[in-house]
């Protein structure tokens, strides 16, 4: 985890001690409190129901295995989501870290002329809205994102989490998070725009 983001104790010492000692009733409360969130997060990442259930179980296995070393420097939920994200990346065999280059960077660049003005206008916003409102279209475009970009986008734009928290979950710096979000948004935009143009 990233040191400078993690130096504050955010969990009460009593609760922390109970977690570290694997106190059964404390663990039960935690499992009852967060299983639903974990399952929903797995489904949001695009996993099918049974895969999502396995992921949640694997997340808890890791948590139970490691909770005697839990330092309480992030919220329990953030910590759990971090584990879930690691497990999900393993399952998808995807790179968790930021790729140095991504084709979308170049695609966005080609939208501008030498003075930095748009060469062609982005399509009519009402038309764009119509296309993105179709669940099939937006689902296809979302499924085309790599897991790290999709997760970053959902945590930020759907769940509205703070940047710091997202960085902790994904274990990236805020600069890297910004790049992931830029790529996610612009891929979704290009994908939907091309669908709009294709259908007409």
């Amino acid at each position, binding site marked *: 985890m990233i040191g400078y983001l993690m130096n504050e104790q955010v969990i009460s010492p009593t609760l922390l001690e109970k977690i570290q000692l694997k106190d059964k009733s404390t663990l039960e409360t935690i*499992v009852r409190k967060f299983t639903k969130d974990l399952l929903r997060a797995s489904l949001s990442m695009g996993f099918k129901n049974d895969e999502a259930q396995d992921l949640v179980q694997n997340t808890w296995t890791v948590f139970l295995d490691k909770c005697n070393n839990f330092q309480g420097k992030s919220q329990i939920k953030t910590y759990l989501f971090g584990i879930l994200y690691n497990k999900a990346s393993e399952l998808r065999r995807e790179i968790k870290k930021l790729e140095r280059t991504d084709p979308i960077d170049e695609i966005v660049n080609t939208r501008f002329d030498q003075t930095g003005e748009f060469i062609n206008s982005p399509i009519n916003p009402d038309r764009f809205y119509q296309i*993105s409102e179709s669940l099939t279209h937006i689902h296809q475009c979302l499924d085309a994102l790599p897991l790290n970009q999709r997760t970053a986008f959902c945590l930020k734009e759907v769940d509205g989490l703070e940047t710091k928290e997202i960085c902790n979950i994904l274990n990236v710096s805020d600069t890297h998070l910004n790049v992931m979000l830029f790529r996610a948004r612009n891929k979704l935009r290009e994908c939907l725009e091309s669908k709009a143009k294709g259908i007409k």
Partner: protein
Amino acid sequence: MISCKEAVEILNRNEELSAFEKTKLELHLKICQCCESYLKHLESIKKNVSNLISKISTVDESQVRELEDKVLKKINNN
């Protein structure tokens, strides 16, 4: 006056904008149809991805219960 490329870059910022940046952006958006459309696209994406996610991540309570019980069984067996 900032270019479209700079405006797009600012629209993709995730931190709070400075007052100066805000003014530059607002001025640009007032006269630039392209960037205004771009901004509206981002807003549509946010809204409709949220709709989609809430649909695909709906779970029924009994399923959650069952999953919790499985996990708790493991804890109690340890």
